[in-house]
């Protein structure tokens, strides 16, 4: 594939194609735990259509559903760690 790029996920380089979502790229990289999550639930891919909010990640500082957000080369994607109560 000619259009392979990569973004950083918590500092780790994740390859992606120009057309896939962050969720798809993380899935291919074998990453299932994509955040510490809220309310004792780990961040994870779940509904795939942006409804459940479980796959929220910080994309260049802004919170986005990984399943709706296109992966692009150079993005800084981070897990959202909740504040300890």
């Amino acid at each position: 594939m000619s259009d392979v790029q990569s973004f950083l996920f918590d500092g780790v380089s994740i390859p992606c194609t120009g057309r896939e979502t962050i969720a798809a790229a993380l899935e291919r990289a074998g990453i299932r735990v994509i955040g510490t999550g809220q309310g004792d639930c780990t961040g994870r891919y779940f509904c795939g259509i942006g409804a459940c909010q479980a796959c929220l990640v910080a994309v260049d500082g802004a919170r986005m559903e990984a399943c709706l957000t296109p992966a692009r080369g150079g993005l800084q994607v981070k897990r959202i760690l909740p504040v300890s109560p």
Partner: protein
Amino acid sequence: MSSPEVLVIGGGPAGVSAALELARAGIDVTLCEQGPRLGGAIHRQPDDPTQSVRVPRSHKQRWQAMSDELAASTVKVLCRHMFAGIEATGAVLLEDRIHGRLVTRRPAALVLAMGAIERVAPVPGWHLPGVVTVGGLQVMMKSTGRAPDGDVLIAGSGPLLVALAAQMASLGNAPVAVLERSTRLMSVSVIASLLRAPAYLWEAAGYLLTLARSGILPRRGAFVTAIAPRDGRLSVTTLDRHGRERQMLVDRVALHDGLLPNSNGTMAGQHGPFIVRAGDCREVLGGTAALADGRLAAHAVLAQIGKAVRATKVPAAILARERQAQAALNTLFDYSGRDPAQLPDETIICRCEGRTLGQLRSMLSGDDPVSAREIKLNGRFGMGACQGRFCAEWVASFVASQRADGSPPQASEIVGSRWPVKPVPIAAFVTLPPSHPSE
């Protein structure tokens, strides 16, 4: 005078069909889709066009025809534009994710075609990573063109279970098992009803044939009772129709218990545009009905804004036929989920806030009939980011099961009913230009 603008939300078959029908009538239409591409649940397009999941040829042709017409039409398509709701003065809020900003529109009419969301009945462990919805796994598979890796268990109820299983099998990784809660079998009357919409029978037959070849026909009457993490995998406890318990060790569990319209927070206010819902967002009837319903929605809009509507009974007839077919189909499934009374207290009900069944139960102990609003506020059920989409129904039905006095709360009292329909980044919100200077 420029012609009135109509906004269509949702780039699935219902939304695209509505937009096209309006454009044919010469209306200025903008179609907004939250995702990066059009297609919706059924016509989701692959990331890499050379790697796609096999779908029925008729589906492919239908979508191709629509895409071609759309490309040649005057419809303005805005992808990565999320409908965020209608605010007090009637303005429609759109979150433009391409530019990271919020924009407002004041269309003459609004067609909401935001599709359905999946129901997933809570079981212990449903919130663990690796547990996904059946549709979610299908979305992933349709996008990547690859079957999900590892051992996959599919469970719940509904036609989507076998569809996913067969598509996985065709891509070379059949699920380890398909557990279909329902024990009901095809009857003559169901077949008779479905003969009026035979595409379903063909589709189902194709899927079942594929599954039979892989040796994994659905186990009817079986369901998941608990999921727990074990050695980096998922240990799943199941019960079969004879009450036998079984343990399985898998990598993923895909759950699904039917579909619900995705229409949270879209109540028409005092101000604002004329609103019509279309497709699964109005009534869950599937893709064929969504196409017809999109046209009907467009006709309702045209009538409202005083444009002549070409008289045709075709879409209404299609809708009626599909409604009958879906009703017949639904008799085969069991969407009830597990009786919450049988779930252990530590089962998480509201995943966003991490609230458990035990916490709900303790709120209901005592004679005082606490209201849905009190349960929501004090119990925090439905107060999280998904705004109750995944728990409201279960909270309401559990409360009802505990109350003999016939005053069950409505799920609508727990689900969010106001804008924003979905969380909106503050960074986007602050870009909204002030309409009048702040005092």
